[in-house]
């Protein structure tokens, strides 16, 4: 659904989504990576279990929550990618312990 523009630089960042290896570009937000990877959703809601995907991309809607490096409810549109980052789709409520 989302196509990337031509790369301006040649470097890439390695990370994983649910254990699967993904290459991202420096400066990508985690939400951008999820969308570029073709994911249709990133979490289920904590009460009804409905699917949600990144929406506003500017930190307002809280629909893009994922688990990043073991911490749940992170706003993926506000978190820049880092080498080795472990991203997991979040199912329902986050765990209380990081």
């Amino acid at each position, binding site marked *: 659904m989302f196509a990337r523009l031509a790369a301006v630089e040649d470097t890439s960042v390695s990370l994983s989504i649910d254990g699967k290896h993904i290459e991202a570009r420096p400066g990508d937000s985690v939400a951008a990576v999820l969308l570029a990877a073709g994911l249709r959703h990133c979490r289920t809601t904590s009460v009804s279990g409905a699917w949600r995907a990144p929406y506003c991309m500017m930190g307002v809607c809280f629909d893009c929550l994922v688990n990043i490096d073991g911490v749940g409810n992170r706003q993926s549109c506000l978190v820049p990618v880092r080498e080795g980052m472990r991203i997991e789709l979040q199912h329902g*409520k*986050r765990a*209380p*312990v990081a």
Partner: protein
Amino acid sequence: MKPQAARTDFDVAVIGGGLVGSALSFGLARAGRRVVLLDEGDAAVRASRANFALVWVQSKGLGLPAYAGWTICSSNAWGEFAALLKSETGLDVGFERPGGFHLALSEAELERRALQLKRLHNQPGIVKYETEIVDRKRLEASLLGLGREVVGGSFCPLDGHCNSLRLHRALHTALFNRGVCYLASHRVEDIAYHAGEFALRTAQRELRAGKIVIAAGNASMQLAPLVGLVAPMRPNRGQIIVTERVQPFLRHPIVTLRQTDEGTIMIGDSQLDGIDPDELTMPVVSVMAARAIRMFPVLARLNVVRTWSGIRVMTQDGFPIYDQSETCPGAFLVCCHSGVTLAANHAFFLASMISRGRLDADSVGAFSARRFDVR
């Protein structure tokens, strides 16, 4: 020529659509009465939308032993009350009674708590209810992730909690289903009593009813004198912190801390002077948060999503006021802080008494505002 007999529109008019007024209206409708429920608008200051949702027993009744018995009666009736609402509306109000704790963060705090319970239980005429002082080992059996400073606490198996916003919604759904006439934005400005009938003036219209129930929270103070009653109030403000939703980890409500059925953690129970609902005192919020983290260190890792202030409906001595007018027979006053805890009593027992036209002195006589008189 006008007809001689005025048409009485309703058997009972309940003033106040919060938890107290809705629970009473529900009970009155179940008793077969034609009920009109007069409410303010959405912008009203409403304790029913700003409360901690505990169905709480322990500590209640110091200074008025009858209050302990009345509270236990409601706690025991709550399961049936929740089941009834479920069957009438399909809504689950999330009632649970796993027993609740007070936690002490030092030996001195634990000693103070023990003394408080002793004073409560030593009162003449108090009902027996089990609240026990428990040590850290006993706490660890029930609560995960306790901070190391928690030395002990008290436990009462009758304590529980619910989803109070859903309770409010369920009551209003049940009222709608039962054909109760609910009128929002009908703030009652004046009440006149004439020949066994009440005329209630609102900005929109005048309504007539054979009986009235004033259940208008802190505003009852202004309305009660219109029908020969008094409601001495002393409202105060409480603050609440709400975290993001997390997987269930707190199995029991703590008096200042609980996990809701939908996963958020609520931290609260401050008491402040002042009744401006827009006020929020940051130093108080930080003290609440710091104590909560000392009780459960895992809370330090959670995001706070909301903090808010609510105004407590509070009588001058903190106990309910249930009264009936001598000068305007048929006028009742129901005013209390614990609209959640006492909802079952209000729907089942108090509404029946009002429906019959007489408060039962044996069960609720102790709650008359005559207790404030100088004797």
